[in-house]
Every structure is written in structure tokens, then in C-alpha cells.
């Protein structure tokens, strides 16, 4: 693969990461959000795969395949399995911040991410480090979603977006963190999603819904 092809394919993957994050903000339908997460996971996994093909490094190919399996297939499916097929349930209700404002905030966050990330991450082992601010943008958008979404599963989606962003920084600026850390971190995320899914199910049984505003028994 020539340097030019590699650079444009990495840029494409980074563009998909950012686009899917913006679409998650735009769509309040959770089924759509899980599909977008799958796209995002595939784009994320493509980055080490491309680097692996370019450097003829089998290790990176394995890492990329694992990332795709987990983030494009397993994680989104775990969230989707907790949806109930009822449009009233599988949707973020009246949002804290409306869609137009959310998109505006997202645009500001992306700009901030480029200002911040661009100055911090200098040229890494490959040209892909230029795209690292996309990871910062995903992190900021994830934090924003976590703060403004009230559906239990929306918060899981936000946490996953945040986590994808961190992984994106690691893969774009370097070749990812050491395997033992990547493995442990993925396992922890996997278990956290399972736990939050079980809790969302119990919440549905006990409260008849998964709106976090129903959680108001414990306070001072």
C-alpha cells in the first residue's frame, strides 16, 4: 500500500468515526444509535488493520480484528439486546438540550478537540497522528451525551462513544496501548456494559421505565 493510499484510507476511517458520533447526537432513536456504534467500531478497528497491512505486521492485524469483533459486533449487540422494540421505550424522551443546540455544541466541541489535540499529539510513528484530534472529539462528545441524555441505555451508548474516542487516540497517535492493557480494558468495558444492561432491565421491571429522572429516592 502506498503512503498516499494509506493516508487517505486512515482519513476516511477517522472521518467515519467523527460522522457516526455526530449522527448519534442527531438521532434520538436508540436502535439507530447502536447501528452507528457498530459503524464506528468497524472504522476504529480499520485503523490498526490498515497500519498492519502497511507495516506487514501480523500483530496489528490481530489487534484490529479483535477491535472490530468487540466494538463493531459484540458491544452494539449487547446494547441492542436490551431494547424492547417499542418506539416509546427505545427513544430518548424529551431531551435536556434540544437537537439543534446539541449539534451546535458538538460542532464547538469538535473545534475545541482540534485546537487541543492538534497541539498535544505531535508526529507519532506514522502520518496517522494528524487525525488524532478526532479521538479527542469523540471523548468530548461522549461526555456531553453522558451529561444530557436521560435514558439509561443512552448513557451506555455515551460511555461507549467515550471509550471509542480514547482507543482512537491510542491507535491514531501510536499503535495502541500494550496488548495486556488493551485486553484488560476491553474486558472491563464488556463487563460494565453487561452490568449496566442487567441494571437497566431490573429498572424496567421495578420502575416500569428506564428514564433516569425516576431515580430520585436517594438524596440529602
Amino acid at each position, binding site marked *: 500500500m502506498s503512503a498516499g493510499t494509506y493516508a487517505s484510507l486512515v482519513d476516511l476511517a477517522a472521518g467515519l468515526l467523527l460522522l457516526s458520533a455526530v449522527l448519534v447526537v442527531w438521532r434520538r432513536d436508540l436502535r439507530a444509535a447502536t447501528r452507528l456504534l457498530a459503524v464506528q467500531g468497524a472504522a476504529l478497528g480499520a485503523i490498526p488493520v490498515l497500519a498492519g497491512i502497511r507495516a506487514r505486521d501480523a500483530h496489528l492485524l490481530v489487534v484490529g480484528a479483535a477491535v472490530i469483533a468487540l466494538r463493531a459486533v459484540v458491544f452494539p449487540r449487547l446494547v441492542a439486546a436490551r431494547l424492547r422494540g417499542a418506539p416509546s421505550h427505545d427513544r430518548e424522551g424529551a431531551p435536556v438540550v434540544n437537537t439543534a443546540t446539541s449539534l451546535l455544541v458538538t460542532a464547538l466541541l469538535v473545534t475545541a478537540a482540534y485546537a487541543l489535540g492538534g497541539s498535544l499529539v505531535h508526529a507519532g510513528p506514522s502520518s496517522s497522528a494528524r487525525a488524532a484530534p478526532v479521538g479527542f472529539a469523540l471523548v468530548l462528545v461522549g461526555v456531553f451525551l453522558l451529561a444530557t441524555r436521560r435514558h439509561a441505555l443512552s448513557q451506555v451508548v455515551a460511555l461507549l462513544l467515550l471509550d471509542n474516542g480514547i482507543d482512537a487516540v491510542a491507535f491514531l497517535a501510536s499503535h495502541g496501548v500494550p496488548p495486556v*492493557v488493551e485486553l484488560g480494558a476491553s474486558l472491563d468495558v464488556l463487563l*460494565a456494559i453487561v452490568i449496566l444492561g442487567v441494571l437497566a432491565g431490573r429498572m424496567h421491571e421495578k420502575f416500569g421505565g428506564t428514564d433516569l429522572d425516576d431515580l430520585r429516592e436517594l438524596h440529602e
Partner: protein
Amino acid sequence: MSGALLVTLPVAAPVAAAVVAVVAPWPRARSASGVAASLAVLACGVALAAGNEVGRTVADDHLLRVDAAAAFMVTVIGAIGTLATVAGVGYLRTEGARDATATRDARRYEALVQVFLAAMTLSVLAGNLGVVWVAIEATTISTAFLVGHRRTRSSLEATWKYVVICSFGITLAFFGVVLLYLAATQAGIPPAQALDLGTLSAHAARLDPALTRLAVGLMLAGFGTKAGLVPFHTWLADAHGQAPAPVSALMSGVLLSVALVVVLRVRSLADAALGPGFARDWLLATGLATLLVAVSLLVAQRDLKRLLAYSSLEQMGLLAVAAASGTRLAIEGILLVVAAHGLAKALLFVTAGELQHAEGTTSISDLAGVASRAPALAGALAAGLVALVGLPPFALFAGEIAIARGMADAHLATALAAALVLLVVGSGSLVSHGVTVLFGRPAREGRRVRASPATAVVAVTGVTVLLVLGVVGGPLAHLLAAAATSLGAR
């Protein structure tokens, strides 16, 4: 025993006990293996600490490494873990008698407690910052269903908040770890060693300051979440209030301080890379804010378990302020407070849990006048509270004096004064609420309550150890000094 075994056993023994809890059909074998695993952790901690008096490294490979601070923390985890598993046997027995906890739930409870213990020992023993992170996150994973063990509406609410807030905090810390890894590889450290704590502090000066500053900030905020530090402290009181008492004892007694030790390690790294100012300012600000929040919620508290939770928050705030100074005396004081507060809090939570079981409430006004109905439990509660507010001869007193002197040495007199004022107000409200619980006018006629054998064992052991630590803390001096050195004391 060989060094490698001593280092591996504190993680391996609880994992083995967790397996036993899942597969063994006999309840007695499950309880016994749980207590035995905690005792094994304690024994390893003592052996490591004894072999570690001068700060010698016992074992050093890339995954696990022992310094004096790790040896000290393994001992504390083992001691409080033992108290909590003994109390857990009593908890499961009383819950089983009411048929509230079926066998399947009991197994899960026992297995998760052991996984929780293993995660905590791993997070103090791991030599790789990435593995430390994985272990800290594993403490959240393993305690989620423990907090929600009772399956009530409020415990579900507490669990949700706990998992989401801690996952978020710990994700921030992971971002910090990743950025630090980038800074290290950019500085030419080989990727395999780029998260090794020893390598990082040896080459700290070469790290890019801007990137490291962001990484350290994220790690302090993220690991600080698990230590209960502001701004992500809101999970703490809910989780501690709703969890079964022995789990609250573990979370409040050791989990918070395990996370705090990670914060101290990050601080020592930050000092080496960025100079002392950055982490100091951060810790001062969050520590004082945590103290302020905790004390203001202590004053008007109506629930005994939440009172204990906010008192833990108060202690963590104090320890963060003390950590800001970074002096040897202050760090030795921090470690002494970690041990003494952990023991006192474990004792208090277990007693409060027993009272909750007997009286069906944790409301301070409903519990009023416990001294006449449950003299033994009231005695334990009183002893625990006296130890907790830092009165001599208990060990907390010595720890707080060391912190005060250490901070004065570091010219942080203003912060020290602010912290002391808040501490006095906090202790005052602890005492006044404690007096209400013990001697207040009873809201209703209650039956007499006797302490269960498990609680009696925990209470007597806890008070004895606290007294011994306070009166003859001398033998600990070497260990504390070595531990402070390994945490980068100046």
C-alpha cells in the same frame, strides 16, 4: 516462603476462594475458604512488610512489584478483608434465616467479595499503570452487584449511579493512562516499558510537559473518583448506604484508600515530571472541596450509614489535602490514618448493619436510645466513634498529628487551618449524632438486641488493633517511613 509466591498469593488466594464459592456445595466450606483467603492476604502483607523494612524491593517483574507502600496496603486489605469476611458470614446467616438471600445469591455474594479483594490487592501490587487501571475498574465491576445485593428500588438506584459515575471517572483515568503512554513513547521509552511505574518515574523528566499535564489531570480526577474526591463524589453515600454492611466496610475501609494510594503514585510521578506545583494545587483544591461537601452533609445527616459514608468522604478530603504537601511526615500520617480509619469504619459499618438488621432501620432518630436496648452493640459503636473522631489513645490521633506537622513543614498553614476547622465541625456532628443514636430518647419501645458472634469478634478485634496501633505504633515506624519513600515523599 519465596518472594514470588508472597507477591502472587495476595491476588491468587482470593481468586481461588472465589472459585470455591462458585463450585463448592457446602456453605461452611465456602465461608471458611473466604475467611482463609483474607487471612492469607493478611499474612502475605505482614511477611512482605517484615522483609521490606528498609524499602528493599522483594520482587520486581513487569506485572507485579512490591515496594513498602504496596506491602503496607496488602496488610491493610488483608486485615480489613478478614473482618469483613467474618462479618459476611454473619450477614449471610441472618439474611438466610429470613430467607431473603437464597443460596445462589449467597454464592454470588461470596464469590464477588473475593474477586473484589483480589482486584484491590492487584491494584496496589501492579507495577504497570495500565494494569493498575484494569484492577481499579475491576473493583467497580465486582462490587456492582454487591451494592445491589438487596434488590430494592433504592439499592438499584444506588447501583446505577455507582456504576455509571465510577465508569465515567475511571474512563477519564484511562484516557490519562493512554496519553501518558503516548508521552512516554514519544520520549523514546520502548512501548513495552512505557507504562511501567518504575521506568516512568526514572525517565519522568523527558516526558512532554503539556501532554503529561493533561494526562496527570485526567488520572487525578479519574482515580480520585474512586477515592470519593470532588467533583465525582456523589456515588459514595448512596453506594455505602445501600450496600450490605460488610461490603460497605470494605468499600469505605479499603477501596477508598486503595484508590487514594494510586492517586499518591500519580502525584509522585507528576512531581518528577512537572515539578511539585501541579499536583499540589489540584490536591489542595479537590481535598478542601471534598472536606467542605462532606462536613456540610454530616451536620444535618439523618441516616446512620450515610453519616458513616460522609465521614469517610471527610477523611478522604483530609488525606488529599495532606497529600498535597508531599512531605515525609504527612505521607506517613496518611498511611497511619488509612489503616486506623479503615479499621474504625469497618467496625462501625458492621455494627450499624447489625443494628439495621435488628431494628429494621438506619434512621438516626428511629435508632435513638440504642444503649439501653443493645448495650454490646452500643459499646462497639461508641468505641468506633471515639476512634474515628481522632481522640487519643486511638491510632487516628497519631496519624492526624503527623499530617498537621507535615503540612506545617510544607508551609501550607492556611490550608491546614481550613482543614482543621472543617474537621472539628465534622467531628462535632459525628459526636452529636452518635450521642443521639446511643442515648437519645427512644422513638418507640424496642426489644433487647444481642450482638451476633461474628459482630462481637469483629468489634473486639477492631478495637484491640486500633488501641495497639495507637499506643505502640513504634514497630510500624520503619515500615511507614519506607512506604512514604516509595510514594515519593520529599
